[in-house]
């Protein structure tokens, strides 16, 4: 579904970006990359074997073989094909991550992201880079550093990334030595680096487009880290280099930097008109609601609904905990807007083994959710839930029932249960979402007038 949707939108995506104004937020609609298609015609290329291995990689492919193929592409240097092939492996639902433990899957994804810093970054990688920087897990500094490295290699939209990079320079943000260039790393590292160093290099590469970071860079320069820090000298040098690259004339005065023109990126698919919505029935799986009752999507008949995903033991508070808080706000807004009778909201756990109905109930209530009639927190048998995720292309991978990787997603469905729009890799804007739900609630399925308007 996701592939076809992206394919349909491929043609219109660039035009869409032109049309949007900053006040609406920038809508970046990106094509799904088809790996096989990308490497067609590269048979004579010395990297073809590596491309092929990466395109055919699944959860059963040896992790070291994948790393070796990536290394080969890195040695060959910048290449659009290599960058696109690596980017095609980034979605969390990619079969590459299935059947791998969370550590291995994360390590692979980190290595792929870091490699983009060498081979180049296609625009399609932007949502993944921003998602890792924005919804960071402080426990996973290596992944953040890899995203920062990739951000530095962007050739377009660099300025948009700067607000997501700068916070990591705050003196209080923890850092540690790491190695992004060696997949099978040992201590001491062969290519030691730091998260902050990667951020600084990225800002340096961004150059004059990173004006928004000057304030914090000067602050970091003025601050005195204790002399015990082994990273101190390296970072001090990198701070100076970044400042020089961003402000070569040395004209910056505190408080005069222009704020980023766009505050937020929305990775939101284009609204699918009535005639283009895939006429596919909603999954018939039987789930279990937070009330402990059996649930099927038939209960949503004739009402549009929004569906999101979370799990209560998610260690990244910038992801699931935030998702639930945002969903609580949405619940509140739906009630305030008088739409309680017109729409439904549902959140499905990504971890059905652990998130039983009572836990789902408590998790939402503890975060201020009121669990009104139109709110449904769903769990169920593992097999059924995983089947549902497959049908909906949900960005999640599991191993031994444990969530390995997942993105943030919200899917909108119309009254007939057809997919209309997907918010991926970002938390939604409630106001925009309420407008979307209202529009769907008012949709008259047989109204030719509306059909013609949408077309």
């Amino acid at each position, binding site marked *: 579904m996701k592939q076809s949707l992206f394919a349909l939108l491929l043609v219109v995506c660039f035009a869409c970006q032109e049309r949007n104004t900053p006040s609406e937020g920038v809508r970046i609609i990106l094509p799904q990359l088809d790996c096989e298609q990308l490497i067609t015609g590269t048979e004579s290329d010395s990297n073809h074997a590596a491309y092929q291995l990466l395109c055919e990689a699944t959860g059963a492919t040896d992790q070291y073989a994948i790393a070796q193929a990536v290394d080969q592409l890195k040695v060959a240097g910048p290449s659009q094909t290599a960058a696109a092939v690596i980017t095609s492996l980034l979605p969390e639902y990619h079969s590459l991550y299935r059947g791998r*433990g*969370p550590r291995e899957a994360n390590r692979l994804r980190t290595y792929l992201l870091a490699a983009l810093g060498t081979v180049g970054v296609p625009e399609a990688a932007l949502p993944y880079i921003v998602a890792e920087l924005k919804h960071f897990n402080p426990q996973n500094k290596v992944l953040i550093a890899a995203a920062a490295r990739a951000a530095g290699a962007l050739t377009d939209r660099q300025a948009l990334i700067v607000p997501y990079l700068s916070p990591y320079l705050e003196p209080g943000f923890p850092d540690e030595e790491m190695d992004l260039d060696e997949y099978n790393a040992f201590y001491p590292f062969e290519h030691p680096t730091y998260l902050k160093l990667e951020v600084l290099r990225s800002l340096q590469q961004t150059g004059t487009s990173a004006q928004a970071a000057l304030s914090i860079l000067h602050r970091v320069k003025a601050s005195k880290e204790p002399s015990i820090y082994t990273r101190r000298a390296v970072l001090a040098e990198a701070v100076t280099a970044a400042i020089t690259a961003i402000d070569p004339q040395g004209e910056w005065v505190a408080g005069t930097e222009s704020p980023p023109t766009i505050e937020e990126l929305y990775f939101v698919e284009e609204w699918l008109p009535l005639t283009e919505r895939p006429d596919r029935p909603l999954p018939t799986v039987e789930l279990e609601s937070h009330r402990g009752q059996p649930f099927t999507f038939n209960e949503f008949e004739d009402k549009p609904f929004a569906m999101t995903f979370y799990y209560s033991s998610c260690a990244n508070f910038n992801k699931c905990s935030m998702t639930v808080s945002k969903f609580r706000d949405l619940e509140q807004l739906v009630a305030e807007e008088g739409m309680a009778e017109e729409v439904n909201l549902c959140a499905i756990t990504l971890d059905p083994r652990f998130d039983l109905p009572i836990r789902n109930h408590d998790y939402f209530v503890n975060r201020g959710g009121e669990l009104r009639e139109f709110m449904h927190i769903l769990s169920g048998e593992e097999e059924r839930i995983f089947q549902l995720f497959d049908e909906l292309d949900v960005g999640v991978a599991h191993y031994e029932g444990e969530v390995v990787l997942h993105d943030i997603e919200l899917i909108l469905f119309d009254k007939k249960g057809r997919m209309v729009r997907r918010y991926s890799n970002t938390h939604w804007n409630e106001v925009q979402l309420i407008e979307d739900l209202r529009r769907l609630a008012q949709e008259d399925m047989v109204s030719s007038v509306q059909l013609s308007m949408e077309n």
Partner: protein
Amino acid sequence: MRSIIIILVLSGIANLSFAQQTQEDYQREIQEYQQQRQEAVRVFLNPNRSVAERVRALEPYALITDEKLIQQFKEIVYNEQERERIRVAALRRLDLQVERDSRLFAYVGTILRNPETPKVLRREALDRFSRVSFSTFGMFGGKDEIISTFRELTKDPEQEYRLQGFSYLVQNNDDVAQQMLARGLENPEEALLPVKESISILSLAGSADYFPVIYKYLNKNQGDAVREEAIRALGRYSEARKDIIDILETERGESESLRLVAMGVLNASYPREFAEIVTPTLRNKETPASLFTYAVQAELYRRDNNNERSRKFQDNRYVPDEFDRLVLEYQNSESVQVSNLAQRYAKRLNFN
């Protein structure tokens, strides 16, 4: 009435004088303590006294708070000509300063990283450093220094230090340390820690990644200690479920302690199916009383809570299942321990 007033006044005066006396007592006690501590410090700082005398004098006093003394104690720690036991005693009293003073913090890290440091001093440095790793300083400012130090310890010639290094790193989500341990389990010639310790630390990571490599040790003939660690680590691994259940079988002749570990892990990992899993074991009359007790206690605890009981009630009557009926059969067991427990089970769940 007058006598009551007189009694009240007298008791008030008595209370007041008692309170005053208590306050004076406290003040005197504090002064005495300070004088004693001062005297102890004087002995400790006197180079003409023996090392044993100096160390013993300071023993009752855990911390030093006087700024001047703190400085003096730091100088003792930095003085490499000073005798090691004296340096250890000084360093121990500077517990709070290690996280506040970056020079002292760095120095403690340096002596910890150096395997040539005298043993007792290095051990003390490890204790101080481990404490700092849990403090605010360890959480934010100096965390990377702590991590670097513990990473160096993973290659230390002494196992105790390697163990500390890996434990800290694995608990702090260090991917490389986990990989090193997993590789050691795959290739014993590369192992930096013994198998039991490696499994025990890796299980702290709580990641399913290491299930397959630990699983290889579940039925390996490397002693019960290793197998016990493997069982504990594999509770959530579906592949290992049957192997762990099999360990419960009496016919296999596994040790009682190993069977108890297996039972504990099954109870924690499969609470809903636990009764069903252990029923065949309990049915066997040769099952040791310790296993019977564990299984019945665990299930009693579960069934005794209201939620669980409400599920079992039908028409206001508790419907016993196979596990219940089996436990009831043991009410007249020859073992007093078993029969008492079975009777208590019946009573608590209102069977009789």
